[in-house]
C-alpha cells in the first residue's frame, strides 16, 4: 500500500494499514504516517476534537448560565443601553434595553437548545420506528411511509411550520413538535435503507427459523444494529434543529416574550445594524460556533464509523 496522490476516498479500498512491526516491510513509519488512511484518521480525530471544543464552548456556559456571575437576562437599566462589548463589565455589551447581551444569549440558548434536543429525540424516535417498519415489513407499510416521505418533499415546509405555530400558539412543545415534523423524514429514510440491508442478513433468517415474532426480531435484533449508524445522523440533525428554531423565532414564531431565543435576539437587533453591530453579530457567532461544532463532531464520528465498517449508506443530510 503506497500513498497515492489520488487516494481512494471514503475508505472503500483501504482498511487499517497498521502493518505488524515484526514483519519486514518496505513501508516505513514515515510512509504510514503519510498514508491516506492515517491522514483520514487524523482528520477525523481533529474534527471530533475541534467539534467537541466548539460545542463545549457554547453548551457549558449555556447550561451553567444561572450559576455564572452575570446579570439576569431581563435585568434592564435604561441608562446603559447599547453599550459596546467589553464595557462596564458586559462582555458582549448590552442591548436596546440595557440588558446584558451575554446573559440574554446564554439564557436564550437554554430555550433554543432545549427545543433542539427535544425535537431530535421526537423526530429520532418517530423516524426510527417508521423507517424500520417500512424497511423491515415492506408491503403496504413501506408504501405508506415512502409516500409520506415523498409528499413532504413537495410541501412548502417553512410555510406549513409557520401555519402550525400560528394554529397552536408559539409554545415550546408546539415548536418542538413542528421541528420534529420537519426532520423525521431524514431519520426514516436512513433507517429504512439500513434496515433493508440488515433484513437480508443470516441472523434475521435464523431468528425467523427459531420462531421469533417478526416484531420481536425487529426490535431485539435488527434495530440495535442500525441505531448506532442512525444516531450519527441525529447529531447532525441537532445542528439543523437549532438553525430551524432560530429561523422560526426570527420570523416571529418563537415562544412568548420576554423569553429570549437566539433568532429573536437577532431579529430585535437587526434594527440597529448601522449603529450597534454586536447585537446581531455576537448572537449569530454563538449559533455558528455551536452548529459548526455539532456538524464537525457529527462528521468526524461518521468518518470514524465509516472507516471501521467500510462504505455504508451514508446519511445525506439536507436542509429544507
Amino acid at each position, binding site marked *: 500500500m503506497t500513498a497515492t496522490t489520488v487516494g481512494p476516498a471514503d475508505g472503500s479500498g483501504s482498511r487499517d494499514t497498521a502493518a505488524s512491526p515484526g514483519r519486514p516491510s518496505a513501508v516505513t513509519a514515515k510512509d504510514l504516517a503519510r498514508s491516506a488512511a492515517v491522514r483520514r484518521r487524523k482528520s477525523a480525530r481533529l474534527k471530533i476534537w475541534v467539534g467537541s471544543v466548539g460545542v463545549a464552548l457554547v453548551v457549558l456556559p449555556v447550561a451553567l448560565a444561572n450559576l455564572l456571575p452575570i446579570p439576569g437576562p*431581563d*435585568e*434592564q437599566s*435604561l*441608562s446603559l*443601553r447599547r453599550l459596546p462589548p467589553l464595557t462596564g463589565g458586559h462582555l458582549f455589551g448590552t442591548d*436596546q*434595553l*440595557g440588558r446584558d447581551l451575554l446573559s440574554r444569549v446564554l439564557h436564550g440558548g437554554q430555550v433554543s437548545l432545549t427545543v433542539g434536543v427535544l425535537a431530535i429525540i421526537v423526530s429520532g424516535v418517530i423516524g426510527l420506528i417508521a423507517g424500520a417498519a417500512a424497511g423491515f415489513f415492506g408491503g403496504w407499510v413501506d408504501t405508506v411511509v415512502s409516500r409520506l416521505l415523498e409528499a413532504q418533499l413537495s410541501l412548502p415546509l417553512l410555510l406549513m411550520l409557520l401555519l402550525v405555530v*400560528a394554529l397552536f400558539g408559539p409554545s415550546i412543545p408546539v415548536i418542538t413538535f413542528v421541528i420534529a415534523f420537519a426532520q423525521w423524514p431524514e431519520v426514516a429514510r436512513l433507517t429504512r435503507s439500513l434496515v433493508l440491508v440488515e433484513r437480508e442478513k443470516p441472523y434475521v433468517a435464523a431468528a425467523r427459523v427459531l420462531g421469533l415474532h417478526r416484531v420481536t426480531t425487529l426490535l431485539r435484533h435488527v434495530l440495535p444494529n442500525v441505531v448506532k449508524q442512525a444516531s450519527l445522523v441525529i447529531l447532525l440533525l441537532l445542528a439543523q434543529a437549532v438553525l430551524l428554531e432560530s429561523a422560526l423565532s426570527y420570523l*416571529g*414564531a418563537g415562544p*412568548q*416574550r*420576554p423569553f429570549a431565543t437566539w433568532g429573536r435576539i437577532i431579529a*430585535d437587533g*437587526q*434594527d*440597529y*445594524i*448601522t*449603529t450597534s453591530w454586536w447585537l446581531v453579530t455576537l448572537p449569530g457567532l454563538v449559533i455558528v460556533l455551536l452548529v459548526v461544532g455539532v456538524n464537525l463532531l457529527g462528521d468526524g464520528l461518521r468518518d470514524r464509523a465509516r472507516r471501521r465498517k467500510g462504505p455504508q449508506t451514508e446519511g445525506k443530510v439536507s436542509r429544507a
Partner: protein
Amino acid sequence: MTLSPLAACAGPGSAPGVGAGSGAAAGSGITLALNRSLVSLDNKLNQFDAAVTVQRGVRQALTFIDPKLTVQHVLAERFELTAPTEWTVKLRDGVRYSDGSPVTVEDVATALRMYQKVPGSFLAGLFPEWPTVTPVDAATFKLVTKHPVPTLDYLMANILITPAAANKPEELQGGVGSGPYVVTAANRGTGEYTLQVNDKYWGPAPAIKTVQVRFLPEEANRVVALRSGEVDVIDAISPDAISQLSGLGDVEVQQVPSTRITQLFYNFRKPAGHPLADPRVREALSYAINGPALIKDVFADSVSPARGVVADTLTGAVQTGEYVYDPQKAKQMLDAAGVKDLKIKIIWETGEFANDTSVMEAVVEMLKAVGVQAELQQFQPGGDISKWRQGRGGDWDVLGNGYPGPTGLALTPLQGMFAGTKEKEATRDTYQGYVFPKIAALLEKASQETDKAVRESVLATAQKEIWNTWPCMWAFVPKTVIARRKRVENVLLSPTNSYELASVRLNG
C-alpha cells in the same frame, strides 16, 4: 393599471425616467419607500397613513387638512355651513381629471354612495351619518344631513372623487383622478408604482416629474436604502432609525407631533370586585411607569408624553393632566386600596407602535419594582387580538394600543374610544368595555353642537371627566417621522403622516 406578471418580468428599467439604485439621485424623480404595501390608489379600504400621500397625488377630495390641521379647499371653491344640517359647496372652476373631463356634482354624489356601500371601510366609522347631495346648479350643491354634522368639511377631506361612471363600491384598481400625477406603471403584487406628472393638471404643475413608490416592509431595509440613496424618502421610522440616520450628512430627519395616541389601556370589563375596577388602583399603577425614562431611553425623544386623553395636536383637544413617575406613591396607593400581590396580563400586537416589545419588556420590570407581577402576551399580526380585545379570547388587564386621529379633530377619537354605551357593549363594540353614560352624553352633545365655542367647552369638560376615570396606565403621543435625502426639499409633513407630493422640490 393592470396586474401583469409580464410587467414584473420586465424587471429593472421598466420604469421610464427613473434610474435604479443610486442612479435615482441624478434623475428628476424621487423614490418613496413605504412600510406597507400600497395595493391601490383608492382609499375606500386601505386607509393607512403613508398611502394617503400617494393616493392624494392621483385622486383628490373636496377639501384637504393642512399641516396645521385646518381645512383647505381643493376641488371645492366654497364649503360653508349654511344651515344647522346643510352645507353648501361650490366646485372650483376648471377642475378636471387627467383625461380632460370636468369634475361634476354627480361625481361627488356617486362617490358618497360608493363609500357607504363598502363593508369594513375605515371611513364609515368617521361619519356619524352620510350626507346626501342636493344639486343646486352645475357646479353648486348642498350636503344635507338629518342631524347637525358641524365637522363635515373635515370629514369630506377623506372622500376621493372619481368620475361617476367609473366609480364602484369597491377599492378601485384603475381609472383616472384629478390629482397632479397619473399612474403609468403598477404592480399591486409587489406594491410598486410609477407616477408621472399629469399634463392636464388644473393646478400649478408639480416640480417633481416622476415619483416611484416601493414597498420595503422591514425598517432595517428602508434605513439602509435611504442611507445609500436607493430611495429618497422613508416614513414610519422608529426612534432607533432616527438615531442611526440623524448623524448622516445627506439625510434629514423631519418630525412633527402626530394625531395618534398610544395607550396602555385598562380592561374595563373587569367585575366589580376586581382591583382594576377601582380607579384608585388604575391611578396607582400609572405612578409605577417611568415615563420620562421610556421617552428618553427607549424612544430617544421621538414621542411626547400625553397630557390628555387624546393627542393635544388635535383641534378641540385640551390638557387634562400628566403621567407622573412616583413608585413610592404607587406602592402606598396600592397598599391603601388593599391590593396585594397583584398579577396582571398585558397584551398587544407586534408592531402596534414603535419599539413595542422594548416598551413592554421595560414596563414589566417597572411594575415588578412596585410589587406587581406582569405577564406579557404578544400577538402576531393577523392573530387573535381582536377577539381578545372584545373579551372573547381570554382574560387580560392592559392593552397596548394606538388610536389614530385621522380627521384632525379631537372629537373623532374621543367618540371612538369613550362614547361607549350599554347597547354597544351588548355586541362588544365599545372600546375595551369603557362605558360611562355621562361621558357618552357629553360627547354626543358636542358632536351635534354647531356653535364652535360651546362645542369646545363641552368637549373640554368631557376630556377632564375621562381623565379622572384613569383609563390608561400610561400614554404617549408619537411623532410623525420621515427621513429624506437632503436633495428632496419642501416636504410639508402633516401630523396625520402625509404630505403633499405636488409641493415637494428637488435641489440640484
